[in-house]
């Protein structure tokens, strides 16, 4: 699904990513972990060419991104969703307008917009929030809107840059649950960059450990599911119920 071949990225004298090759299978939830400055975020940004590699090729979904024209690259990006640590919603747009933005960019017929936006908001459980502005939402809700926005054009791949790193443990579990169900129900390949071990353990099928801009090791995992991390009993019950829903 995603193949990086010998990609390298320099920032001035610093090499952020040095000759990394890796392959991500369709349908995987693939983790990339490492210490700060290990190059994991840069590696993720290379996958949709938010950063242009100085060398190497990037292939996604059968297309070699590194040899596409600007226009072709923009079109390809419509089916590569991305979410961020800071959510990056447009604060002056309502939830609805944030989610409809990618549909407009992709030139989808106007008549289909409303139904698709509501479908995506329903998926993340926020359809009643469509007229609110991001400032009126909690962190977890913002991230769910960002996920709905990333899903709007029915992406084949979802790139997640530290998606839970500014969220509390409960909200982290909630967002991981949403990502897991996107993977299972919609068959979207997910790449998660994080520094949180638990996130990798709970949802990833495969993980690459990065160090100093290079792949240190890649290993297969059996995802442990999203466990309870709080010691409040009501929260355990809540989580168990939620887990039941996701599986159903």
């Amino acid at each position, binding site marked *: 699904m995603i193949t990086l071949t010998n990609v390298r990225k320099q920032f001035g004298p610093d090499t952020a990513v040095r000759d990394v090759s890796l392959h991500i299978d369709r349908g995987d939830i693939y983790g990339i972990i490492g210490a700060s400055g290990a190059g994991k975020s840069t590696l993720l940004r290379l996958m949709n060419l938010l950063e242009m590699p100085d060398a190497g090729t990037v292939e996604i979904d059968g297309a070699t991104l590194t040899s596409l024209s600007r226009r072709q690259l923009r079109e390809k990006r419509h089916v590569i969703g*991305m979410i961020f640590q800071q959510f990056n919603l447009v604060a002056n747009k309502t939830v609805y307008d944030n989610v409809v933005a990618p549909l407009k960019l992709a030139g989808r017929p106007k008549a289909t917009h409303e139904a698709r936006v509501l479908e995506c908001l329903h998926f993340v459980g926020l359809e009643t929030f469509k007229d609110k502005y991001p400032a009126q939402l909690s962190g977890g809700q913002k991230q769910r809107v960002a996920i709905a926005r990333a899903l709007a054009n029915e992406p084949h791949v979802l790139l997640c840059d530290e998606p839970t790193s500014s969220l509390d443990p409960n909200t982290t579990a909630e967002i991981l649950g949403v990502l897991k169900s996107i993977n299972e129900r919609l068959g979207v390949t997910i790449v998660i960059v994080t520094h949180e071990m638990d996130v990798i353990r709970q949802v990833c099928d495969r993980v690459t450990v990065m160090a100093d801009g290079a792949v240190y090791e890649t290993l297969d995992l059996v995802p442990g599911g999203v466990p309870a991390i709080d010691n409040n009993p009501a929260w355990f019950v809540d989580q168990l119920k939620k887990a039941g829903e996701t599986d159903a």
Partner: protein
Amino acid sequence: MPDVLVQYQTEIWRSIGETFIMVGVSIIAAILVGLPLGTWLYLSRKGQLLENRAVFSVLNLIVNIVRSFPFLLLVVFLIPFTRLIIGTAIGTAAATVPLAIIAIAHYSRLVEQSLLDVPRGVVEAAVSMGASIKDVIFKFLYVEARSGLVLGLTTSIISFISYSTIMGVVGGGGIGDFAIRYGYQQFKTELMMYMILIMLVFVQMIQFTGTTVARLIDKR
């Protein structure tokens, strides 16, 4: 109404009209040229979408040069240029040329600053969704920076009014020129005070409108 205002009402209305023309042209120039120029300044900065050191340096230098001129000197300095495009260097139409130029330089800087306040991540998200440069500008940057753009324009308009008051030196007229010639030079202090009052009311109205609009459209 005070006698002095009744006596000079024709001249007063004419000078208000001249001020409106001069400030109006400045506003149009600021929006039509200053806004794109400020956007280009922002986009050509280091790390931005159209990063280009040469373009940024040149634009930055031009804006700085225009803004560092004492305005009176800029007016005089531009006389040959004004004559070239208007045909004369004297009168209200001629006065709009230096005003438009300072307006462009002034507002473009404020536009650049407003855009710098937009979180980088918003632009990054837009690009990741496949937005073109045009989409990023109109559907993301201007939407997110809109209250700053309005406040910047408000500040600019008030400066334009101030700049327009000295256009008497090239026969531009306007309220400021009227206040100087009739009020100050002919020792009609009362008349000068009324002119200052008129300007004060204009400035208050503009500031109030600008602040209110900026607040209403800011959902951040």
